[in-house]
């Protein structure tokens, strides 16, 4: 319940500050540009949103750290974190509140891309299964990126470092699957197992595999749990 109160406060602050009006348009314009202008969408002439679901995981590696960078780093820098930690709210509730707030912003960003499939469905026989899968996959992938971004943000007081650290980690997990042919063979199965991109690609094909869902959910849980632990550890400093 406390987490939800914090989440509501976070969402409200996103739309009170310019964040939502900078980050969201950047995501929406870049996605629209990439899928419908830079890609030969009409030349290829296929009723599919595959280009969007190929581009979104990459743009998320920039977009998500931009949301999470301020969540704890800014609170630490301004000294608000110490005040927050004195509230009668558990560390996990605080982390969950911040997470759900950011997750709602991510959801809003994806909601605003719904005109993409609607427009494509109007000019072709769109299979909604892979579209549903793609959106579910993006929510899971975005959630995992958010959890990582939160962890990095909680570990530093500098927003720039939080952004770069979050981006580096998210990007590394994103390209892990693409780098398989380049890494030492012994590493390949491990990289394949933790590759966000490969896991997401399965769901975006329209197949919701329990293994992929469990992977993303456990990545979110692990990220949030570690963030809560980082905050707990701060109490003892």
């Amino acid at each position, binding site marked *: 319940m406390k987490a939800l109160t914090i989440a509501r406060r976070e969402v409200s602050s996103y739309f009170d500050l310019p964040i939502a009006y900078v980050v969201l348009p950047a995501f929406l314009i870049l996605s629209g540009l990439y899928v419908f202008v830079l890609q030969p969408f009409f030349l290829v002439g296929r009723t599919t949103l595959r280009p969007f679901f190929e581009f979104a995981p990459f743009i998320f590696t920039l977009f998500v750290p931009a949301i999470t960078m301020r969540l704890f780093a800014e609170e630490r820098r301004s000294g608000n974190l110490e005040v927050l930690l004195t509230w009668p709210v558990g560390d996990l509730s605080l982390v969950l509140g911040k997470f759900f707030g950011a997750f709602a912003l991510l959801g809003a960003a994806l909601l605003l891309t719904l005109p993409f499939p609607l427009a494509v469905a109007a*000019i072709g026989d769109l299979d909604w299964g892979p579209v549903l899968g793609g959106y579910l996959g993006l929510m899971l992938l975005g959630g995992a990126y958010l959890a990582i971004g939160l962890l990095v943000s909680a570990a530093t007081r500098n927003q720039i470092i939080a952004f770069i650290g979050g981006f580096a980690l998210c990007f590394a997990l994103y390209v892990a699957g693409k780098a398989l042919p380049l890494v030492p*063979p012994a590493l390949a199965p491990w990289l394949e197992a933790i590759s966000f991109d490969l896991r997401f690609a399965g769901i975006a094909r329209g197949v919701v595999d329990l293994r992929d869902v469990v992977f993303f959910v456990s990545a979110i849980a692990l990220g949030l749990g570690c963030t809560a632990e980082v905050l707990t550890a701060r109490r003892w400093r």
Partner: protein
Amino acid sequence: MAASTRPRARLQTACTIALLLLGAVLLNVLADLYPRRLDLTADGRHTLAPITRELLAEAEGPITIRAYLPQRIQPPYRQAVRALRDTLAEFEAAGDVRLEVLDPSDPGLDEAARRSMDEAAAGHGVAAVPLQLAEGDALIQREVRFGVAFLYRERQAAVAPIERAADAEYALTRGLRAVIRDETRRPVIGVLAGHGEPDLVDSPLATLLTPLGDMQRVVLDGRPIPATIDLLLIVGPRQPYGERDRYVIDQFAMRGRALVAMLDYRPPSTVFPDVLVPLETGLEPLLAAYGVEIDTERTALDRTRALPAPVARDANGRVITVNHPLFPRIRDLDPEHPVTRGLSSLATPLAAPITLAVEGRILARTGPEAATLSGVATLDVARYAAVDPKRETAGSVAVAAAVSGRPASAFVDRERPPTEAAETAEPPFTARPRGDVRLVVVTSGTRMLAAGENALVFLQNAVEWGLTDGALAGLRARAAEDPPLEDTTAATRRLVRYGLTIGPTALLLLLGGLRRWGRR
């Protein structure tokens, strides 16, 4: 106090993080042990197809499936191995299947175990494939058994390795069908050579056709086509076949065999690639005798459904891609016939119109706004921008057809050309086929095969239909291209392009503005 608590707190943090990590790993291991999948696609393309379930239900006893799947394999096979494993797990859940998944690349295997596995796999007909495998930090090239063996009663069939994950169910269902319906003899696909046809036997296309049967070049030298050939594939001949060649092909068909002909009627000149040379393949009288008439003088054209083709040149002489009316995208495909079932579109460059004089199926037809043009001699796209009333006839035409039946020989009322191969005894003339002849004709050949994945699926389906009943053809089409967009005007395209780039942001800003205004 603080000094003594801090190390304890750090230890507690470390322990909690370790426990979280362990929990996450355990959860993933559990999910791996009990995989569950939900297929959201409209045509259930990632779920076992009805034909697969039907075959599993036909079995009157357990089917043993021994899958030799190297786990330490490198791309492109890595995803295919996972897809094979997942599909096999679904086979196991859907029927009386005993599944054994073996890893021939397992470094833990001792020499004796490796040899024993190798011999067993060879006995099942699973091929040894040269693969890149991970050993320690190094990649090594080694021949490893890779494939799936189906064992049922005394029958066995092996499935060759696949490269694309999307082909997993098709390949496995083929193996399953071979043992259940006792189709364990591998058919032979004869590929005509010697008249300027591309060498398909040594091309990448062979990897698509060899799962259907062994490929063998057939050079027409006057002698009868070997009796072992089940289907004759004729793709893009550049020199016309003579009377004796026609007779040999006719007598092959009269054995109740299948013909798949993908013919070019306007190949490019060898000197000037933009110039198109009219060509007669020599097969036209033969095909006409079987009821498939081809108007070699005319070429199909569609300005509203033109495909991009690399045919024009810029000021520097570089080839550029432009939408070309002679490269029509066919959307009117027979949804019921095994050759085109599941395909949403097909590119048929420079196709000639077909008319059926017997009962058969039109597989592909140009769009309602299409036309035909006589005497096409150049690829220059500017020539086709406007309607030429003298040479152009409006109307949709067929460009691919399939016929199945027992037509009379094309030589039943004609003099039969003598053989020049004196050492070969001429077999007796057959006037009527002993079984059904299956014939697939498409009037776009080599350019069509280069024009997209659906053309390859068409070819595979045509061969499959010629060799069997084509029941598995729909399975393959499920993995092919997405459906095409509808015809749109330039204004609609602009609206979609810029509306979707700016629209969502405008909506967000509007909502933000309303929120602020409401607060005030």
